[in-house]
């Protein structure tokens, strides 16, 4: 995908337009209308990594939805695919609290405004939604690469406002009724709500671990849940990324959480 390396110098919207013009694949055309934003090639710097793992991971350009998936969008999906309705979903693929805040199988109700992000969905359900749309979930590296961008430039960590927003969200409890998607300031790439609306599923959340034999009972992984664990990190402004890593390491694919949603991605 050579053209994308050249495109990485361009501002997001312009690059999207160029990609749409250059690529023959119909799926990539008109992505702005489809809610997608091009995230140019970049790097992901994992806050936790094994002994021999590189400090930076290259991330190829990809398309990311500018907003998390809403209740209304997920409702359309479960209308289409009955096996993902609340009363029908197999417990193997989603825990008991799946869509518990909806008024019914096909009814959102007051706790799930149509334009609020859908939450209480399992990884399996999120992935099925993405697949039905011809998309996929972003990888950890992709999601973190997008979220590391600031409001003005590629390095959010250098922007006081970015740090304030990212840390501020962690310090506040999530409201019972979530606000609408897109209500949060967009990143330099035009992606909303990455820092301060909900946690989000990633495709490979189960790669988050720190040692070869890690599983719950190792000291390194346990420290993830503890704020003090961040003291060992090189860059304390990465505290939100650290918390996300801790969150991911605690998840299992059928879990549902009141403030965990998702958005889709697409390879160009």
């Amino acid at each position, binding site marked *: 995908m050579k053209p994308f390396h050249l495109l990485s110098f361009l501002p997001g919207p312009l690059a999207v337009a160029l990609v749409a013009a250059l690529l023959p694949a119909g799926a990539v055309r008109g992505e702005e209308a489809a809610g997608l934003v091009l995230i140019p090639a970049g790097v992901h710097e994992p806050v936790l990594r094994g002994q021999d793992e590189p400090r930076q991971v290259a991330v190829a350009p990809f398309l990311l939805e500018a907003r998390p998936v809403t209740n209304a969008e997920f409702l359309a999906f479960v209308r289409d695919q009955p096996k993902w309705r609340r009363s029908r979903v197999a417990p193997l693929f989603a825990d008991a609290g799946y869509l518990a805040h909806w008024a019914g199988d096909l009814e959102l109700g007051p706790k799930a405004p149509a334009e609020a992000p859908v939450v209480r969905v399992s990884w399996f359900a999120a992935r099925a939604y993405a697949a039905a749309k011809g998309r996929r979930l972003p990888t950890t590296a992709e999601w973190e690469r997008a979220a590391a961008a600031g409001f003005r430039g590629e390095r959010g960590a250098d922007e006081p406002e970015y740090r304030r927003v990212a840390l501020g969200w962690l310090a506040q409890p999530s409201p019972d009724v979530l606000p609408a998607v897109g209500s949060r300031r967009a990143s330099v790439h035009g992606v909303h709500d990455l820092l301060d609306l909900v946690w989000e599923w990633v495709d*490979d959340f189960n790669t988050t671990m720190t040692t070869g034999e890690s599983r719950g009972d190792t000291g390194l992984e346990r420290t993830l849940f503890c704020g003090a664990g961040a003291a060992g990190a090189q860059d304390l402004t990465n505290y939100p990324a650290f918390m996300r890593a801790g969150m991911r390491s605690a998840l*299992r694919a059928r879990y549902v*959480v009141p403030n965990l949603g998702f958005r889709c991605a697409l390879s160009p």
Partner: protein
Amino acid sequence: MKTHLVALSLLAAGALLAAPEIPAPCCRPAAPAAGPCCAPETKPAPAPCCVELKAERPLTERSLYQHDAVWTSDAGRPVKLASLRGEPVIVAMFFASCEYACPVLVHDLQRARALLAPEVRAKARVVLVTFDTRRDTPEALRAFRTRFELDSMWVLLRGTETAVQDLAMLLGVKYKLDARGQYAHSNLLTVLNAEGEIVHQHAGLMGDVSEVARKVAALVPVE
């Protein structure tokens, strides 16, 4: 703080998972079909013993055998996990070129099997599924079988990356390919009952595997 609460609730959910589930007894009535209301009853009366009905009974809601990917055995044959239905199995994920953990994992499984009575051992299979979709060809798996002297009760499988990811998600196994080409992974033994439902999970290496053996033994009816 929110994040701590979330972590705690997740841990609690994890503890729930570990709770043993009651194995399905033989001849349990089949789950009602999800057909339209008032569909005419066309099913024949159940046979005295349901062995012959087993194949057509729908999978249970918690059966891992809903994962219907087609795997390849070390003999090069296509295998669906549902073909293991009917007897308990122990499932673990590994990769054949593993330098440290996997030989120990196999040894743990052999220790657990050694604790089983011969009639139980003759029924309970061990399924080893590789993470390594690239290197673990059927030949590599055959070499692994020979090296560890694994008899026919051991099923060695490889699959697509999606199938491996799905199974790992269902089992709660974490894994990651590192820079040296080794997979960092959870060491987790999972006991499935005859229906493919998770009954017990054992984490870690070189631990006490007697509980694994007890759980498996409890799933084989005494004759």
